[in-house]
């Protein structure tokens, strides 16, 4: 059987997985016949519903996520609103135009200076999601649909069900669009996972290196594999910003850190702060309180043994630093939902020993912060900067030279525009294949 020029199943005996994949690819063919503007309109309409406080589907999702993460509904509302408030028809169209130049190139050849070109989306996208911010997998789905590609999204194990709810809302609004999406684990049948991956022309993977390595060995050599991660984020607080409005800085830093329980790589795990050790120490308790306010998750008493071990070693290290005369100060043990530490010495951001952990790192000046980021070149996703006036632009320029991929105002780290260059790369433009016509 040939669909879209690709052999989907050639074995004499077709498996259930093969059938599901064939169904997806067929739905993708139907998608490709629709105008891009229509797909944008339908996605925008569904996202608009998700902004409606009175919509029963949204309310049920908030309820379910609040139970899943054991946080108040308000914490979940903030996560949903941070995403859906930016997902409008205008922003979706701007995303497509920003990356492809013209949305019509998805519908057919569009004349250019000397030729015409069309952007063809993949025959099948398989997206493998990692644990993270609940709305992140939805952007993978939307990006596939915007380039008219059907998508199989494999969620992280034991994750929340927001993505499934979102997809159900699409199917409810536009069954044909819904038919082009599967959200689910790999098929149970023997070879089910391989069948799905073999059929993929593009695989998007977010996760650990070993996961990605295993994935690569399962896909066809010609399959386009797009890998996201690993990344960390940091904050940079200048002395003037802290002096001018300490309360605002604390709120903004907590806003970025505590968003979705620090599950995403846009949440800072370290904040470079220009100030004395006493000043840093004085930020520990207010920041801890502000993080708990925003994401009051249960204590981490049931942290895994690995995390307990890492935290135990880290706690001993703090005692070593104190013994060595370094003014390390921290608050929030495993009986607390969060830990905030004012480090005694400057260090680049690193993976925290336990979830929900923020390190305040003392720096003498902006140059030190830039240097610390430079030492993690390729690892820093976003730096949220608290600086005033011209200084912000200067810092941003230097951070860009130090390998940082995105610089935002502190407090806005979690609200990147739809078309932001994740990992420094385009999203939609990475998915399409350009075809030129010259005559």
């Amino acid at each position: 059987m040939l669909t879209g020029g690709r052999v989907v199943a050639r074995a004499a005996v077709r498996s259930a997985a093969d059938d599901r994949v064939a169904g997806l690819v067929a739905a993708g063919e139907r998608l490709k016949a629709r105008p891009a503007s229509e797909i944008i309109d339908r996605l925008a309409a569904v996202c608009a519903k998700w902004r409606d406080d009175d919509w029963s589907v949204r309310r049920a999702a908030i309820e379910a996520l609040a139970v899943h993460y054991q946080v108040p509904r308000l914490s979940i509302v903030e996560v949903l609103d941070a995403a859906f408030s930016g997902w409008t028809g205008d922003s979706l169209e701007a995303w497509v135009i920003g990356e492809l130049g013209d949305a019509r190139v998805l519908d057919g050849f569009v004349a250019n200076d000397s030729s015409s070109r069309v952007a063809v989306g993949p025959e099948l996208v398989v997206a493998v999601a990692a644990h993270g911010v609940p709305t992140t997998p939805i952007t993978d789905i939307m990006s596939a649909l915007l380039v008219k590609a059907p998508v199989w999204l494999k969620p992280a194990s034991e994750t929340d069900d927001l993505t499934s709810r979102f997809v159900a809302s699409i199917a409810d609004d536009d069954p044909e669009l819904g038919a082009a999406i599967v959200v689910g684990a790999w098929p149970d049948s023997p070879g089910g996972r391989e069948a799905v991956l073999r059929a993929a022309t593009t695989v998007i993977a977010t996760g650990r290196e070993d996961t990605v390595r295993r994935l690569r060995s399962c896909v066809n050599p010609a399959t386009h594999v797009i890998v996201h991660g690993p990344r960390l984020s940091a904050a940079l607080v200048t002395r003037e910003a802290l002096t001018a409005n300490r309360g605002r800085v604390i709120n903004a830093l907590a806003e970025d850190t505590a968003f979705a329980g620090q599950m995403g790589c846009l949440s800072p795990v370290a904040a470079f702060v220009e100030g004395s050790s006493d000043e840093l120490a004085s930020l520990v308790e207010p920041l801890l309180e502000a993080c708990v306010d925003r994401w009051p998750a249960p204590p981490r008493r049931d942290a895994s043994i690995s995390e307990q071990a890492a935290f135990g070693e880290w706690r001993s290290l703090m005692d070593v630093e104190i013994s060595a005369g370094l003014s390390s100060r921290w608050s929030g043990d495993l009986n607390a939902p969060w830990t905030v530490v004012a480090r005694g010495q400057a260090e680049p951001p690193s993976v925290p020993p336990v979830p929900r952990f923020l390190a305040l790192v003392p720096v003498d000046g902006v140059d030190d912060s830039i240097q610390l980021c430079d030492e993690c070149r390729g690892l820093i996703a976003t730096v949220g900067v608290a600086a005033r006036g011209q200084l912000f632009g200067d810092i941003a320029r230097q951070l860009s030279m130090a390998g940082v991929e995105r610089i935002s105002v502190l407090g806005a780290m979690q609200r990147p525009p739809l078309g932001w260059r994740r990992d420094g790369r385009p999203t939609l433009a990475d998915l399409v294949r350009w075809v030129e016509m010259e005559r």
Partner: protein
Amino acid sequence: MTRAAAPPPREKARQEEAERLDAEILHAVGSGWMDPIDASGFDQLARDVFAHQFRFNPVYRQFCALRGVSASRDVAGWKQIPPVPTGAFKVGRWATFPEQREAAAFRTSGTVQRTPGVHRFDTLALYNAAIISSARRFLFPDRKRIRCLFLSPSPAEAPDSSLVHMFAVYREVFGDPGSAFFLSGSSSGGLRLEELIAALDDAEEIGEPVLVAGAALAFHNALAALGSDRRQLPAGSRTMVTGGFKGALRKTDPDAIGNAIAARLGVPADYQVEEYGMTELSTQYYDERLRTEVVEDRDHPRLGFRVPPWARVMVIDAETGAELETGGVGALVHFDLANRASAVAVQTSDVGQRTADGGVLLCGREPNAEARGCSLAAELWLEQR
């Protein structure tokens, strides 16, 4: 004519005490498994080393005070010695001796570590003795010498690496002519493939067994570079793989590497020795599969890494610090007499368990570990040694 100034009395006392301790520790290491130091001997010597470190490392003394130990006599047994986290080797200068007495220093590697951990030595006598004693028992129980092919840079290229130093000791003590290092530069890249292929071809042609040794990641890269050719190294050839066994930091699948070694190098599983070590320790642990195969009168090797008589491993509840019973899974604390000049007790975030017969099993990350987003993957960037 000038005479060298005599050391101040405190330094003189330190030197004398260090020499006395070293003599006792060397005796324990040298006696090895044949006449192992007994429980009370270990306890006394561990407490003596602790007292030495308490006396001559003021930061450690302060650290002990935070742990409720205000004098060395407060410690009634080796299990009560306050363990130092591995991160302490990155804070200041973690050593009992003055800078001018430093004979060697090994550094932890890592992509994002601003300050590497540094393990400093005033003598390598204990370190080398520990390397030789354990390697002789577990890696070379049947041979005086063997040609060693190291998947690592040479000591000249990586003078700060404890792993490379260990290989250099192997070469010196156990290596036949032709022993060589096959990586260029200080990283695991830079495999000199043609030279490695020539050495492997040579071994097959001559029929003399070889040791191939390296970190798990180096094996992974080398096996990939060697392609799909299937070799059959001479009988008695063996491998030593280190690192890559800790679940949270796993870069490589040890089973996959073991299978690949068997299939591509022709080294059977019984001759694939695994080693556990870290820059912050002077003593290494090996599994006993090779020893069981060629020397011991047992059908199967005992499980886990074997801890030599001059060291102990305690498994603790990471939150309370309490020792767990055999089989309990918790954080590993190492007690290593050969760490006389640094820290006799070292706390790690490695998770494992003790077996009933004294082995140590390392555990992987639990499947229910709380997710931490894509940042979790970043830990894979950190080198283990």
